[in-house]
């Protein structure tokens, strides 16, 4: 049987003349009917460009196919050479025979058109349906992706739906005309892990129902284990290795594939938890948080009377010992970042007490023995300041003159975080994302803090950079006895760095304790659901369960107080909130 898609020696370039660069350099693969091919690679590997070349959307991004062929087996049995197809032919193929979904469901749907009109368009273009027929077809399409109350949702505009819902709408749209090939370009990267599991489950089910082929692009080799038949690993525009799923995962040949499988954090259910750092309960905590509450009043009506409050954080307590990492995990909107920001005074706490252990400061007294490293290394450094001004800022803020000793410390820290000697005179844009994050770490250490808050500090980095920054953080922790409050949504990363884990849900900690214990034997239903949703390499072709429950609203009526938490102990350092 001939493959549905056959790509051979594909070369794609961007730019012209002196600025021309080749992004895809000789990629070949075949895709059989009903098969799923996963293309795995980090940013800049050319994986997305390869995908966009198949339906020739790459033309609109300034790219050109410079060599090679892409042959598609059409519905009528003919084979079309897509690199030479006319625009007219391509518009018939796009949507009709090749569907595509993208990374950011929030921005991938037209904000001014209703969901209904956007889905109907597919039927209008490829099936010639109009009016009520198109509308009925659109409703069926929404039903098919298990969107409840589809009739009403058709009249919604994208801003009225959550990210997970929008990605389902995207899938409904891409599959509207039963294309035989679906290209999914990192379709779950922007979503929470439990929502990701739902989307993966949906894709697997629809694949079974329709028998379509799929190309699944991702940076997360763990994610493909559940869905792919074959895997192609890309690096620097080339396919360094491809083969059957089992073969790639179990017997990788290329060093880069081995690196992706072993050096990069993968979730392994607590087995990879840190062996060091036994808790000494007698030690004085570096940070103690007691009954932290953060609420935002909601005002309504003409005179702005308060009508309720958003309970972003609702009674959080924990303590953090020197040299220890407490990971706060949860999904978006759970209150984990608000907790971090409240500890640093960036958002005012409505109630609650903090105590922080001070220690001798190298460069003078700072009011805050707690420093923070932020998520986005591109936004957390002022682009107009040179590195030495950036490192000097905390010192200036603490009222100390910049002298030779301070400059020595700058140089020492830069060296320690692994940045080149001549960095001081350079500007942030001259550094890569990983280097910038190292710079942020150096800045946070300028005042010799006892606690460092890391808010999704490695989430924006490529997976192999992630691994190296995590290593650096662990080394620094051992060297300086730092306590880390590590905020993250990524269980694989958390497993590598955490001694203890606090799971936060709807503004409250639902489970807290020793990392290995929490990850290997979760007790709270939410923790179980969260951990079950994390993709792992060991889970092959497993069907995810479809769970369409929504996160509860954090909006509470005026004066609402949550009932006092009751805790159940499981082991020496593992307790779980009892649900009423």
């Amino acid at each position, binding site marked *: 049987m001939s493959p549905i898609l056959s790509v051979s020696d594909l070369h794609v370039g961007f730019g012209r003349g002196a600025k021309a660069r080749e992004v895809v350099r000789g990629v070949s693969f075949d895709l059989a009917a009903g098969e799923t091919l996963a293309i795995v690679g980090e940013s800049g590997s050319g994986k997305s460009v390869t995908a966009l070349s198949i339906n020739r959307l790459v033309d609109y991004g300034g790219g050109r196919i410079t060599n090679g062929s892409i042959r598609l087996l059409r519905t009528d049995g003919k084979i079309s050479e897509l690199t030479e197809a006319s625009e007219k032919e391509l518009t018939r193929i*796009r949507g009709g025979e090749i569907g595509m979904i*993208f990374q950011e469901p929030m921005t*991938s749907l*037209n*904000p*001014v058109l209703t969901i209904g009109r956007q889905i109907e368009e597919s039927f209008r*273009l490829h099936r010639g349906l109009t009016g009520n027929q198109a509308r009925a077809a659109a409703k069926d399409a929404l039903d098919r992706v298990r969107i409840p109350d589809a009739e009403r949702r058709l009249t919604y505009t994208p*801003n009225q739906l959550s990210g997970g819902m929008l990605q389902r709408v995207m899938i409904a*749209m891409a599959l509207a005309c039963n294309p035989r090939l679906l290209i999914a370009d990192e379709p779950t990267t922007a979503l929470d892990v439990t929502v990701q599991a739902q989307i993966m489950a949906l894709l697997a089910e629809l694949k079974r129902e329709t028998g379509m082929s799929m190309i699944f692009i991702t940076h997360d080799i763990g994610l493909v284990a559940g869905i792919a038949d074959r895997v192609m690993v890309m690096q620097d525009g080339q396919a360094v290795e491809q083969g059957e799923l089992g073969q790639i995962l179990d017997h990788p040949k290329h060093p880069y594939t081995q690196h992706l499988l072993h050096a990069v954090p993968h979730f392994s259910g607590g087995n990879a938890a840190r062996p060091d750092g036994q808790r000494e309960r007698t030690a004085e905590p570096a940070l103690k948080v007691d009954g932290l509450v953060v609420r935002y009043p909601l005002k309504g009506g003409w005179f702005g009377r308060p009508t309720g409050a958003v309970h972003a954080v609702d009674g959080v307590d924990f303590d953090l010992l020197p040299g220890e990492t407490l990971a706060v995990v949860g999904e978006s909107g759970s209150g984990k970042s608000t907790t971090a920001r409240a500890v640093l005074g960036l958002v005012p706490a409505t109630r609650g007490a903090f105590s922080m252990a001070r220690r001798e400061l190298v460069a003078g007294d700072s009011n805050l023995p707690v420093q923070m490293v932020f998520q986005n290394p591109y936004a957390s450094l002022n682009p107009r300041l040179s590195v030495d001004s950036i490192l000097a800022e905390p010192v200036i803020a603490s009222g100390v003159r910049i002298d030779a000793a301070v400059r020595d410390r700058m140089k020492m820290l830069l060296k320690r975080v692994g940045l080149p000697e001549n960095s001081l005179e350079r500007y942030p844009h001259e550094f890569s994302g990983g280097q910038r994050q190292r710079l942020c770490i150096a800045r946070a250490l300028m005042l010799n803090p006892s606690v460092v808050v890391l808010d999704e500090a490695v989430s924006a980095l490529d997976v192999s950079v992630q691994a190296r920054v995590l290593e650096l953080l662990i080394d620094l922790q051992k060297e300086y006895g730092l306590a880390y409050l590590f905020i993250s949504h990524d269980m694989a990363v958390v497993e590598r760095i955490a001694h203890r884990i606090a799971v936060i849900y709807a503004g409250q900690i639902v489970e807290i304790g020793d990392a290995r214990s929490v990850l290997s034997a979760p007790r709270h239903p939410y923790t179980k659901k969260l951990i079950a949703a994390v993709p792992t390499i060991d889970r092959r072709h497993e069907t995810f369960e479809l769970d369409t429950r929504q996160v509860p609203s954090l909006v509470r009526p005026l004066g609402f107080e949550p009932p006092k938490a009751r805790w159940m102990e499981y082991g020496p350092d593992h307790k779980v909130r009892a649900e009423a």
Partner: protein
Amino acid sequence: MNYLTRRLAAFPLVLLGVSVIVFFAIRLVPGDSITAMLGTEAGLLTPQQRDALAVYFGIDQPWPVQYWRWLLNLFHGDLGISATYGKPVLEVILQRFPLTLELALLSMLIALSVGVPAGVFAATRNERPSDLAVRVAAMIGQSTPSFVFGLLIIYVLSAGFGVLPTMGAFTPLWEDPIRNLGQLILPALTLGFAFAASVTRVSRSAMLDVLSDDYVRTARSKGASARSVVWRHALPNALIPVVTLSGIEFGYLLGGAVIVEQIYALPGLGRMVLEAILQRDYALVQGAVLFIALNFMIVNLLVDLAYVALDPRIRLENQ
């Protein structure tokens, strides 16, 4: 409160601010208020007559009282009497307004019907020679003051063709539409030229931004044709800045195109204000400025309505 309610709530506040500025600005004019009100004729008055007039006009009262009375009169549509025309200010303004309104509408019609297609066209031909041609034309249009362009038109017409634009008495639209349009077409072209240039530039850049958005890529991945992508998916998203610009420009034009009216000798609102300023007819200046600012605010409100109609995100935005 949603977006529109918030804008509506701000309306009376801003109007009040405008009225304060207009009222007190005129009081800041050097010289006494009688002179300010009567102009040069005030010089002929005896001190007794002056005092009597001051009581009559209420200007013997403190400023806040005067302002309050003035404001009350405004609510009754009483803007005072124009010294030069000897008629109620409102009547003088309303007599001049139809021409200004018609001219503004015509200019906007020209600007939008030329500018939007030109901008969209240039955006889809990004960096190609046809794009460059549109951009050069728009740049020249934006850099040519209306008085330069207007004088140039008149010069070319008179020196080249020996015809002069129809000057003289203005014919309202309802009396003789053909003659009326003949009188207004050149002024409208003069104003529309620069206006169209701005619309072109804004449409082009908004369109370029939108064409690189993710949902445009989605539309293409569905198999939408190039034309459908541009007109159905991209244009509605690119219109907001165009609406903003057109609103501001149109609002300005409703204030009277002083310079163009002057060049073509048209009896519009702008020229009336200029003459009132030169003849120190302060009641008329005051009334006209207030009237124009109110028009401008109403246009802004219409622009807000257009936003709400165009973009559901604004419609549903809370707080």
